[in-house]
């Protein structure tokens, strides 16, 4: 059987969303960003809201997210995406506005912005990729880096006396009255990917229902930063990240 015999319309079980551009992604092999980008593209496509959606990209590995999703984008200063999204959403209340941020961007330099956007209950979606490391700058300690985890700025492992503790920002944000939906997901198995997609869909649907801020954390891998193969990174994540950052809905009003 030739390949052309297999690749036929009637055999099609999956295709990439037309909202995902043909640009070659700059992400490393095994990185979670590509999967999450594809899920967001599918959700926007399925909801038919591409003409009404504006994304806000962060500083970090996903700074160039605007190259991959064919919607309007604003690229924010480091950590400021929730403030930028506030400005867009307040002046365009009929738009679906989401931020896409990593752990350094959201949970370190942008702590104040995310905290207050959530506390005001801004009608936006916040997608938070937590891979416990600064990927773009070369693997430094993030606020979510685990105790003992080796990074380029914790070469002997994160020491709580020196660096404090991993920040469970998602649990903190769930305490705020402005958040309506707070969940933590992952994309390491097909089942987990389906759950994350459902969570993202619920988050965007909440914008329409004006249910306050929706916050979707995705625990992800950074095989380059962690210095592991993609398969090793997935295993390490399950064994080490999930106990500290357990998956599931934290708040759903």
């Amino acid at each position, binding site marked *: 059987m030739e390949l052309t015999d297999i690749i036929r319309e009637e055999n099609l079980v999956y295709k990439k969303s037309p909202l995902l551009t043909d640009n070659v992604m700059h992400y490393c092999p095994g990185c979670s960003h590509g999967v999450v980008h594809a899920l967001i593209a599918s959700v926007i496509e399925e909801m038919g809201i591409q003409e009404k959606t504006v994304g806000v990209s962060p500083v970090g590995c996903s700074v160039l997210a605007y190259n991959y999703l064919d919607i*309007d984008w604003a690229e924010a200063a480091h950590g400021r995406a929730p*403030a*930028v999204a*506030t400005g867009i959403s307040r002046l365009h209340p009929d738009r679906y506005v989401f931020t896409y941020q990593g752990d350094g961007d959201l949970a370190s330099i942008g702590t*104040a912005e995310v905290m207050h956007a959530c506390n005001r209950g801004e009608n936006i979606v916040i997608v938070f990729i937590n891979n416990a490391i600064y990927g773009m700058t070369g693997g430094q300690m993030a606020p979510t880096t685990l105790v003992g985890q080796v990074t380029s700025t914790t070469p002997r492992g994160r020491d709580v006396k020196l660096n404090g503790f991993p920040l469970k920002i998602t649990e903190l944000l769930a305490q705020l009255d402005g958040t309506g939906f707070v969940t933590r997901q992952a994309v390491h198995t097909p089942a987990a990917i389906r759950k994350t997609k459902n969570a993202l869909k619920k988050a965007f649907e909440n914008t329409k229902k004006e249910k306050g801020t929706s916050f979707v954390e995705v625990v992800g891998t950074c095989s380059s930063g962690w210095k592991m193969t993609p398969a090793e990174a997935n295993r390490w994540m399950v064994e080490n990240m999930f106990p500290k950052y357990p998956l599931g809905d934290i708040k759903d009003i």
Partner: protein
Amino acid sequence: MAEIKLMKGNEVIAEAAIRCGCDGYFGYPITPQSEVMETLMLREPWKTTGMVVLQAESEIAAINMVYGAASCGKKSMTSSSSPGISLKQEGLTYLAGAELPCLVVDVVRGGPGLGTIQPAQSDYFQATKGGGHGDYHLLVLAPASVQEMNDFVALGFDLAFKYRNPVMILADGVIGQMMEKVQLSEPVPRWSREDIERISGDWALTGRQKGRERHISTSLELDSYKQEIFNHKLQAKYRLMEANDTRHEELSCEDADYLFVAYGSSARICQKAMQLCREQGIKVGLLRPITLYPFPKIPTRTLAERVKGILTVEMSAGQMVEDVRLAVNGLTPVEHFGRYGGVIPTPEEIVEALKKQFIGA
């Protein structure tokens, strides 16, 4: 029918914002400009024009909210005072880098650090030389009266959208706090969706409609050669501002032997000093830069050819004097007189300074 009122400069900023069809104000309290947001919150423009007013968690958040709003082609603004403006510099360089129009009002107080809450003009460098990182400029308007606090809001937005560049109104604590007679502008409606499409349709984030490319507000360019080309474009824009939108005012310069150069409240005080000089038979004129960037170089140089000396008067240790010296380029002596740290100069001491520098005794 013209509406004439007695109002504080800061209150007038708020009133002028509503009247010129501003879409969004994002602010954070700081003395001596808190009346701007307080006035807006009292007026509740979201119930009338639909203008959004939001108290942000910080100056940093406020300027980034402006970035978001400006990305959508909306008329958006913030206001603050010196320490707060320092915090906004990151946002301002991103706005300039993404070529987004917005209005920023700086009611300057004395520094450095937390400094004083009294008026100063010690942030001229920060306002006119970029302020944040990278080769960029804001277009800077310097009001010298409460009337100009009104007029420069609409003018500021016009210039911001004309050049797709942030515009700053550089006032000081005197102009912000003092009450004067003001003729308020006639209200104009906020831009409709069609207006925004017409004015900013080729770049605003309005949602990617079928048939157009996606719009991206960004200041990122990883290719250094492309970044250089972009910087050429910015520089060309600044040259256009210089050619077409440099503004200044000349008072009694026709027969002047000496010249004061001063902006904002210092210019007002210099008017009195000029009168005192003329009573003593010293013919002094006043050149008042209205745009601080672009600086009115040509008028300064033209007058420098005719006068025996120039005294710049600033509520700073001498900042604008550098631009005056660059424009004059040695044609005539340029000296500086300043009071600072929140101290306001008196007309008498300005007269004394002029005499001491150029006339003797």
